[in-house]
């Protein structure tokens, strides 16, 4: 029969020599291999204490951004909801009333902003669609939850902490990548 590839090899079937039949040299060789593995570097990471760094293009949980004065960027234009292929984003817009200038940057803001993390595919299209730099995908991922409604993240879950009143939490949520304008 003609071989289909040139990788075929004839199996060696000659009887074992006395040394091979004694098995012990082979066993010692095997034991030397396993002993050598005791000194190899272990690739395991002690997870909760040590975490692997995320890649710079990792797309995790969303955050709603604030500017450096702590005002929300989002104007509830709805472009992210339109861009979302999984239809995970819903929002309700409201008009800024007098005295709320410190809370919202523009005259219109999102009164309700919800992302269903069970629907979200973390594609990042919302981030690209946003004209106001208001939504970013961060370096964390959605933690487990016991109920479905626990995965619907509202504004209080998504908003980045205030940069002036809570600078440390803000820096942590911001991570290394989100730029603030």
């Amino acid at each position, binding site marked *: 029969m003609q071989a289909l590839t040139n990788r075929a090899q004839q199996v060696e079937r000659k009887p074992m020599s006395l040394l091979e039949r004694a098995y012990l040299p082979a*066993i010692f060789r*095997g*034991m030397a*291999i*396993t*002993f050598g*593995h*005791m000194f*190899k*570097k*272990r*690739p*395991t990471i*002690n997870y909760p204490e040590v975490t692997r760094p995320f890649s710079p293009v990792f797309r995790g949980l969303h955050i709603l951004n604030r500017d450096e004065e702590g005002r929300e960027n989002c104007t509830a234009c709805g472009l992210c909801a339109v861009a979302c292929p999984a239809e995970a984003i819903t929002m309700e817009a409201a008009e800024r009333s007098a005295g709320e200038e410190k809370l919202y940057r523009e005259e219109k803001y999102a009164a309700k902003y919800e992302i269903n993390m069970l629907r979200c595919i973390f594609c990042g299209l919302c981030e690209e669609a946003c004209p106001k730099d208001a939504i970013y995908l961060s370096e964390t991922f959605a933690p487990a939850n016991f109920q479905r409604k626990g995965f619907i993240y509202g504004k209080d879950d998504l908003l980045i902490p205030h940069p002036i009143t809570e600078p440390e939490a803000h820096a942590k949520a911001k991570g290394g990548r989100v730029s603030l304008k």
Partner: protein
Amino acid sequence: MLLSIGLPLIIEKLVLIVVVVMSSLVIAMYATFAERKVAAIMQDRRGPNRAGPFGLLQPLADGLKLFFKEEIIPNLSSKFLFILGPCLAMLTAMMTGAVIPWGDKVHFFGRDISLQIADVNIGILYVFGVVSMGVYGIMIGSWASNNKFSLMGGLRAASQIISYELAMGIALIALLMTTGTLSLKEIVQQQQEHWYSWNIIKQPLGFLIFLICAFAECNRTPFDLPEAENELIGGYHTEYSSMKLGFFLFAEYINMFLSSSVMVSLFFGGYDIPFVNDASLAESIGTNWVALIHAGVFLFKAACFLFLFMWVRWTIPRFRYDQLMNLGWKILIPLALINMLATGAFILLQQNNWHF
């Protein structure tokens, strides 16, 4: 002397028994932990490291888990024998420790206390008798489970242990011809003078055969066919749960520790400290400290053997059953016989001043 059994002697022996039993239990507990750790580091993993510092409380957690599991006795099993099986396995595993000399002697309350529970003059025969009893635990347990797989495991265990005991016994005869005594204490004392008076030098082939048979007796890989999980589920302990299963698993580790101890006493000088003159050491730091060091050295040697057991387990795959029987009957027994004849001829020649 023969009938001078007083209260102090009884108390002394009771304390010794409790210490030996407790320490072999603790060592077996930590052997399970060491097994998992050794397996892990040989496979480039980390192993249990969550319970306590370095995972040192893991055996406690495992034991507690076994205790809290539901105890199931199958309906159609023979209930008395079903319970007797693991008890017998545990009992015979613990009994071997009685004749092993853990150290020379300590001096307390004006008495010399020997660190051996019973210095019987047929010590090694007693060990063999008890080890052969061990197979009853497995056989009774497997038969009483009323389960085909258990029975298969039990049959395998029985035939394997009986086959390998022959080679083991013959290998030992050669050793006993050189020592001229069956008492483990005397065998150890003969090996005290130099490191090259250890019996491993005199009987290397005998030691190799003994070691291989010890692996088979302990049902350890590559001879763990009685519990071959990919063909027999759990083998003889398929139907067991909770602490009865724990007893079987535990008995295996105690057997491992005690067979390591037997090998240390027979071939590696027992509690002998290599390159050290024990008598002069005893004069300089006192008998009790020397006894402590002796026990430590003994345990260290036994621990090395335990490591060897684990090392082999995580290196070598399991034998096929016909290969196992071939190795036992066609290779080990003839080898052991040749070893015995050669030793006998050597001793005769030596006694005859090298004249034929």
